[in-house]
């Protein structure tokens, strides 16, 4: 997969020595990296490694304790309102309104992102076609299978056409076919030049990323292309790489 070209080389995310402490506990410890436009950047790590905390800081949901970070050129400390207009975010927890219909969810998020009525209608039509959801447009979201929900959640996170997309475990609990479909969507977005920042627990998915960072106890312990990491650890696949790295630490898993 490392042969896939990164479309655009301006850095969409720049992180320098970013740290987050909760009281005396350091959840994210001095991490630094850069992500280019059009890149699919994977975030791996055992439970509690600090992935979600890192993403939440970059989305403007959580104030860092120290360090620097810019997202789409905006500073996470001061310009988080501007960051919000430029990112899409799918949180680890499914977060569309289960008691609204598919159509109503799209309308709501469209309205919140400031789309006009006409734009909302067009987007709805487009997404229904695209996700092949016409038969379920007026079903309550809670009645959909998880795989569809996740694709829908991604689509709603994209209503305002952001350049950078943060996906926190978008495929956990989803069946293999749906996971594959989801990744096809991610690829399409990267092709369009969007930056994808994705966390996952699935090692096959890790192989699809352009670059991977592996976190352990708040630290980034490896950051490279999947192929390079496999060579370095003399491993067949990412699963082996991951096991070797995680065993090296005192992580919870």
């Amino acid at each position, binding site marked *: 997969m490392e042969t896939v070209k990164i479309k655009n080389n301006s850095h969409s995310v720049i992180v320098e020595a970013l740290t987050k402490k909760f009281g005396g506990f350091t959840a994210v410890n001095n991490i630094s990296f850069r992500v280019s436009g059009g890149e699919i950047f994977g975030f791996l790590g055992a439970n509690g490694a600090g992935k979600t905390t890192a993403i939440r800081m970059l989305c403007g949901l959580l104030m860092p304790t120290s360090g620097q970070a810019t997202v789409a050129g905006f500073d996470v400390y001061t310009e988080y*309102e501007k960051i*919000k207009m430029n*990112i899409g975010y799918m949180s680890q*927890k499914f977060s569309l*309104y289960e*008691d609204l219909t598919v159509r109503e969810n799209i309308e709501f998020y469209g309205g919140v992102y400031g789309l006009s009525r006409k734009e909302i209608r067009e987007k709805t039509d487009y997404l229904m076609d695209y996700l092949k959801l016409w038969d379920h447009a007026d079903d309550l979201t809670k009645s959909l299978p998880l795989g569809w929900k996740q694709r829908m959640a991604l689509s709603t996170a994209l209503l305002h056409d952001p350049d950078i997309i943060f996906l926190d475990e978008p495929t956990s609990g989803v069946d293999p076919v749906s996971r594959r479909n989801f990744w096809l969507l991610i690829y399409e977005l990267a092709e369009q030049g969007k930056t994808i920042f994705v966390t996952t627990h699935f090692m096959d998915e890790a192989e699809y990323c352009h670059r991977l960072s592996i976190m352990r106890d708040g630290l980034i312990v490896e950051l490279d292309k999947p192929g390079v990491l496999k060579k370095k650890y003399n491993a067949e696949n990412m699963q082996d790489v991951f096991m070797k790295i995680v065993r090296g630490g005192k992580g919870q898993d």
Partner: protein
Amino acid sequence: MQRIFYLMKKEFKQILREKLFISLIFLAPLGQIIILGFAITTDVRNLNLAVVDADHSSMSARLIESLSATESFNLVCILDSEKEALREMDNGKIKLAVVIPKQFERDLKNGRQPQVQAIIDGVDGNSAGIAMAYIGQISRKLQQEWMQKTGVSNALNQDLRLVEIETRMWYNPSLESVNNIVPGIIAVLVMMITAFLTGMTIVREKENGTLEQLMVTPITSMELMLGKVLPLVIVGFILFNVGILGAGIVFGLWMKGNLFSLYLMAIVFMLSTLGLGIFASTVSQTQQQAMFIAWFFMIVALLLSGFFIPIENMPDWVQALTYLNPVRYFMVIIREIYLKGTELLYLWKEALAMLAFGLATIISAAVRFQKRMS
């Protein structure tokens, strides 16, 4: 503006789809009106009393002494005319006046029936009814005492009624405590539902993770709060009308005063209840917690509102505390407008106090909400 509109629209849909909310909104009010309306009675203590003594005799003095000896009444003053007594009642200084006519003692001794009159402010129908019963008791006791003294034979005891209590009721002729309780219940309903729903609908978004999703949109916390709270103002308002209709249909109790004055006051009142709901949401992680916290504050506010226990019956320091309670003011306002038809103009003190506390509550809750969100 647009965002608030979409938020409100979404909120209405969600409220209408949630069975729990629907039953909270429509069944709780009717149930409460019926159950509480029929069940509640209260005791009377320290009711402010004035006596008009036109006789100035030893017997009138004895009657006054007996009246002031009970814990039920608090003798405020002895006046010379009924007119003065009525003025004091209108000013709210007294709730009860007992008028002893001229020649009271002579008539009694001659075996004629003097007419002792009791005038009761019937707005608080509960207290009024009980107060009347007490006066009846006291006078019956005196009657016996005097009959023995004047030597009227015991055989005639049954037929002679020396003291006649004539009650002139003001404002609340039927004297049913229901009349007093029901407007109170309407206030309680509005308070419960708006505070509960505000807390619960906000915390639900926390629980479901949708709040986090909203926080990455360009929505401001002000917009979010308005979008959450405005639908509930409308719900509270609908509920208020359901309550008014329920009171009319079930108890035949229709409002005497101006409906729009009451609407206006209800909205001012909701500032405090919505504020309470917002506050509860900022300190809770689950809907149950939010409900519990709102519940706790509501019970305290209700106990100190004069709804269950007349404020005159409370110890002084508790009475002082009630002045900090917005619900206290709304209880007065809704009863006055409902039962007496009092114009808003005369309730400006209560209205102003309620507005001040309402603003203080909602602003501090909003500031807290704002802080938690960022």
